[in-house]
């Protein structure tokens, strides 16, 4: 048994002549939060889709719990316990909290061939799970459209955990949220990790990533600029690496000022 829950070794992905990813390596232990940082166009989306089993890597290997595996489809990745929460969250705003929570994986009851969707059980579990993360769904049959952005994000994450995620891949979970909502979501991510999940947090917001991450991988133009333990790297260094250097030094100063104000 490897000490790592999941390892992505030297992953490369090409689209025709375009090198979308080149030799990206990430290793995660249980309970660890790795933040994957990168600006727009750094290859984050391609990497996420490779982790999620949508793309098959052209080079490199994926090792889950010590076993080398190949994901042929998103379902394969899911079956191995790697759950990806995309930016669109895969929530249908017109559908109820319960129906969203169990979408595609409905609990069933009844005799074979006459099985029905056990909506009472589903309601109970959904309300319970949401309650555990401090979101009181008064009525689990209310439409998801009535929830706030942070609540929706938490619902999507909570759903992934309920269905047996060991590794959570979160795509920009805080990008559309206000400060308060973002902190609620980040708190929940830390809590999830403390329960033994490994989390890959993809973001371009260092200020959201730095407080919660254990390690940081910076992606730039499809290549990894390395993985750093939190103690070995400062917030400022990360920021400048992400942007690719000098040109943002000025902006960095401004950002720090803004940060101080916040």
């Amino acid at each position, binding site marked *: 048994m490897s000490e790592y829950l999941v390892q992505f070794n030297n992953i490369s992905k090409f689209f025709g002549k375009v090198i979308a990813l080149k030799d990206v390596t990430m290793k995660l232990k249980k309970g660890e939060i790795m933040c994957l940082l990168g600006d727009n166009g750094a290859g984050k989306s391609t990497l996420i889709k490779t982790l999620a089993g949508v793309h098959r890597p052209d080079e490199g290997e994926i090792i889950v719990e010590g076993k080398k595996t190949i994901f042929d489809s*998103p*379902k394969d990745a*899911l079956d191995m316990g790697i759950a*990806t929460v*995309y930016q*669109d*969250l*895969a*929530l*249908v*705003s*017109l*559908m109820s909290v319960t*129906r969203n929570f*169990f*979408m*595609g*994986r*409905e609990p*069933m009851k009844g005799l074979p061939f006459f*099985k*029905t*969707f056990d*909506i009472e059980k589903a309601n109970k579990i959904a309300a319970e799970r949401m309650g555990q993360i401090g979101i*009181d769904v*008064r*009525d689990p049959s209310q*439409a998801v*459209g*009535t*929830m*706030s*952005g942070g609540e929706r994000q938490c619902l999507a994450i909570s*759903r992934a955990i309920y269905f047996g995620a060991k590794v959570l891949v979160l795509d920009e979970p805080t990008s559309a949220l206000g400060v308060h909502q973002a902190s609620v979501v980040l708190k929940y991510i830390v809590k999830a990790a403390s329960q033994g999940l490994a989390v890959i947090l993809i973001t371009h917001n260092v200020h959201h990533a730095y407080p919660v991450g254990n390690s940081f991988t910076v992606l730039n133009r499809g290549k990894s600029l390395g993985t750093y333990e939190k103690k070995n790297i400062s917030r400022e260094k990360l920021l400048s690496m992400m942007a690719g250097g000098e040109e943002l030094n000025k902006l960095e100063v401004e950002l720090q000022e803004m940060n101080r104000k916040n």
Partner: protein
Amino acid sequence: MSTKSKSIETKTDFNQDERLKKVSKLRLLLNRPELGALGGAILVFIFFGIVAGDTGMFSAYGVLNFLDVSANLGIIAIAAAMLMIGGEFDLSIGSMIGFAGICIAIPAIYWGWPLWMSIIFAFSMAVLVGYFNGILVVKTGLPSFIVTLAMLFILRGATLALTRLITGRTQVPGLRVLIEDDPLAWIFATDTFKWVFTWLGSMNLIALRTDGTPLATGIPPSVIWFIALAIITTWILMKTRYGNWIFASGGDKNGANNVGVPVGRVKISLFIGTAVAATIFATIQVLDAGSADTMRGTLKELEAIAAAVVGGCLLTGGYGSAIGAAFGALIFGTVSMGIFYTDVDTDWFKVFLGAMMLIAVIFNNYIRRKVTESK
């Protein structure tokens, strides 16, 4: 005194989030998609009850008459609603009705097939057409509006061309004699509960013909099919996994796909559903009339969609109800027949149909905003 009031206060605080407005029962009811159609149907009955209450519209014969018309439309409206909830349209329903009709009539009359075999053949063709529509929409990603509009012309044209090629005309009569003793046709051609009507007639409770048999002979097969379909589809939507997948596929197909809902398969099955419903409609009509006509079902697809919309389906998918579409069909059927019992010129029916649909769309749009409104 003060302790008492305090305890009451804490109790309410515990039960209620102070930011949450009290949701009335009425409000919860308003969130049901079929509410508008139910209200509309009640209004329509009140209206005709007042205007045409003493004309025979609500005699047994009159009721069965408008129920039959509603039921025929309802059969295709329910299937159209299911497909709309799944996020797609089918404009080829009307053409499929004509096509299915001749698929029954030509083999039975010209090729000497037994009637049951022709009926099975028509349903097989429906499954093929539905599958073709579905796979085309799913694989190309083109709007179903366009794909099925093309199919509307293709099917209607093929129906006309093939019928003329094989028979030299556009109508195929002579089916009535084949119905008797056919092991399958009775499902689509038998009036049921005849004994109830005979009994009612013998008690002089309903109108009789001069020979003493009741004017209304039994519940037409369309009504039985309609009620059965309304119950089954509502059960599917509310109570089964497949029902949840239909809502999910229509609400957000990428999202649904990402959590493992087989969106493609769901949509293809719904397209097969509309084609099969069109064939049920066609079989009932062909056996009732004893003949197939190449132009049968023209514009029915739009009436079906109108009924589905009045029944609370959103044009964007993901929301609606089968029972709502059934009420929508009931409104249209009742008004289209009821208008004969009033002094109003029947030409006005289409105006009513259009106005009704417009009101429904505006109402639905308002409901959708209410449902998805963020806090």
